[in-house]
């Protein structure tokens, strides 16, 4: 950063006011707000990735026919697809794309919330033990109930959801008993994560044959049984999105530190608890259906911040849109790169996200 411009204080007179009073009357002030252009860009990107995600797959349905089918569904016309093709479209592809969008959105806004609450650029939704808690719970379920299988199972999903919330809850309890500041909470999260991960490793050792299954789950995968998973995640994402967007101004305020926020009449502890609760519920829902997809929650909020600015009024809604697009795109790669085999989506998110992030960081330094 170049050295700052000199201040307009003539040291002799000791008056900071300069003569010109014609600069910037109050009416020209503008606060940072979400611009229509940004929303449109986010929506357009999402629309394009959704379309691409729906059209891409092992069975070629033909893009004209898929578009005609969408039109037919909207207007009540006759479908150009056979029954089997319609099933592929509406019971496999569309739910999977929508699930990708929801999971990506949930992880991205939760990551934004965590970064705001902890004033820490390295924070992500798994910081407080959600990942290790879910990992332990899933491993135990797989180890105890071997016939469970990890593909699509209510038991695993419930275990992951409960484990994720259990991990965060444990961190919260320990953090509170040791003082409620953010640094303590982060350290409690680290301790809990290590402890639960150790427990998970132990459980794996007891039943080595479960190792591969658990490993695949940890790497993350979007698996759908029709629209069921979509309906699991949707309510949690909706609540989290509403809470986090309403709290956007308070998240900006938390950036001034607890003391200053309190001096401005806000109870920082309460805001933090509300935000973390909403974000953790969304994260747990995402983890329960998609495993531990890394990097989305960490990087998408940063990409938004670097591109359009630092207020959470912008970061929260745009993280939602671009997080959704990012994960749909990653899932397309996961499905196609080694087709017919499927790569774990977590590998794709890190493999594509990291270099992109590095380029953006460099670009920002130069400005």
């Amino acid at each position, binding site marked *: 950063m170049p050295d700052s411009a000199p201040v307009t204080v003539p040291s002799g007179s000791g008056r*900071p006011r300069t003569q010109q009073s014609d600069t*910037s009357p109050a009416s020209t002030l*503008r606060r940072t707000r979400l611009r229509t252009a940004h929303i449109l860009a986010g929506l357009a990107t999402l629309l394009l990735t959704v379309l691409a995600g729906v059209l891409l797959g092992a069975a070629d349905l033909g893009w004209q026919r898929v578009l005609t089918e969408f039109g037919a569904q909207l207007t009540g016309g006759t479908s150009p697809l056979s029954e089997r093709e319609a099933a592929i479209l509406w019971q496999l592809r569309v739910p999977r794309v929508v699930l990708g969008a929801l999971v990506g959105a949930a992880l991205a806004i939760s990551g934004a919330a965590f970064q705001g609450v902890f004033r820490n650029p390295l924070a992500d939704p798994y910081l407080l033990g959600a990942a290790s808690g879910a990992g332990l719970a899933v491993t135990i379920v797989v180890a105890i109930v071997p016939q469970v299988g990890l593909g699509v199972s209510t038991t695993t999903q419930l275990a992951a959801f409960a484990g994720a919330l259990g991990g965060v809850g444990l961190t919260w309890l320990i953090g509170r008993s040791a003082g409620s500041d953010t640094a303590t909470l982060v350290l409690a999260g680290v301790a809990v994560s290590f402890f639960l991960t150790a427990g998970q490793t132990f459980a794996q050792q007891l039943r080595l044959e479960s190792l591969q299954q658990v490993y695949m789950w940890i790497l993350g995968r979007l698996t759908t049984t029709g629209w069921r998973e979509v309906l699991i995640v949707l309510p949690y994402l909706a609540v989290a999105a509403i809470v986090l967007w309403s709290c956007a101004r308070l998240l900006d305020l938390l950036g001034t530190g607890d003391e200053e926020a309190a001096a401005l009449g806000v109870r920082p502890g309460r805001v933090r608890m509300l935000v973390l609760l909403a974000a953790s519920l969304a994260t747990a829902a995402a983890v329960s259906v998609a495993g531990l997809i890394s990097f989305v929650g960490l990087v998408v909020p940063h990409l938004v911040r670097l591109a359009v600015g630092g207020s959470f009024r912008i970061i929260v809604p745009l993280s939602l849109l671009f997080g959704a697009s990012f994960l749909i795109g990653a899932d397309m790669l996961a499905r196609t790169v080694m087709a017919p085999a499927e790569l774990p989506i977590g590998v794709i998110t890190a493999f594509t996200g990291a270099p992109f992030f590095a380029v953006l960081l460099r670009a920002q330094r130069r400005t």
Partner: protein
Amino acid sequence: MSTLELEELSAGYRRRTVVSGISAQVASGGWLGVIGPNGSGKSTLLKAMLGLVRHEGRVLVDGRAVTGLRPRDRARAIGYAPQIPQLPVGLTVTDYVLLGRTPHLSPLGREGSADLDTVGDVLQRLDLSKFANRPLSTLSGGERQRTVLARALAQRAGVLLLDEPTTGLDVGHAQALLDLVDELRAELGTTVVTTLHDLTLAGQYAERLLLLDQGRVAAEGPPDEVLTTSVLTERYTARVAILRTPDGSPVIAPVRD
């Protein structure tokens, strides 16, 4: 526009009491300078007035006790700028100063045009209008201190607590900032309490000084009565001489044996 009274105020952290039995009165539009050696409890006293630390005793603004008020109501009565403010990453000056309107908004509310007008007025007053859309990270030290002051002023509270407002400023910028505070005090009638480690500046700007030593009031009164060789030698364990500027105000100069 507000009077401030402290009645037997004691405060501290967890089990440790840092200041005790502090009583003081500041007239409406007055300026109280809190001075004292390092660790004497100056910052803790300010935080106690804001209810940020454990405290006993009473703080009255316009005769009304603020200690029992909801945080939001207290924040409308007392504004605060800390010694080392934390600046949120990536916010513009306007966004940051708008945060000062928080006590006047409902918890999840958004600022309206009236709030924006208030901020515009404050920015113009502090000569910050040209920085309105700049990110905080691009400001110099002096601009930053003025921006934090702007946020506290946007609170529109009758009492303003400033913890070492001249930290990190050279003598010219320090003077400019204190002149500005004095001007605001005259124009808006704001009651000001500052901690200041620079005794000369404290003597020149504050109407009355409160000297803390080991958490208790060691001296209180107009600068000429507090800033004496005997008091400073005793309380600061320092060797000082009191000189005079051409206009007669005291200058506290260290003396080397």
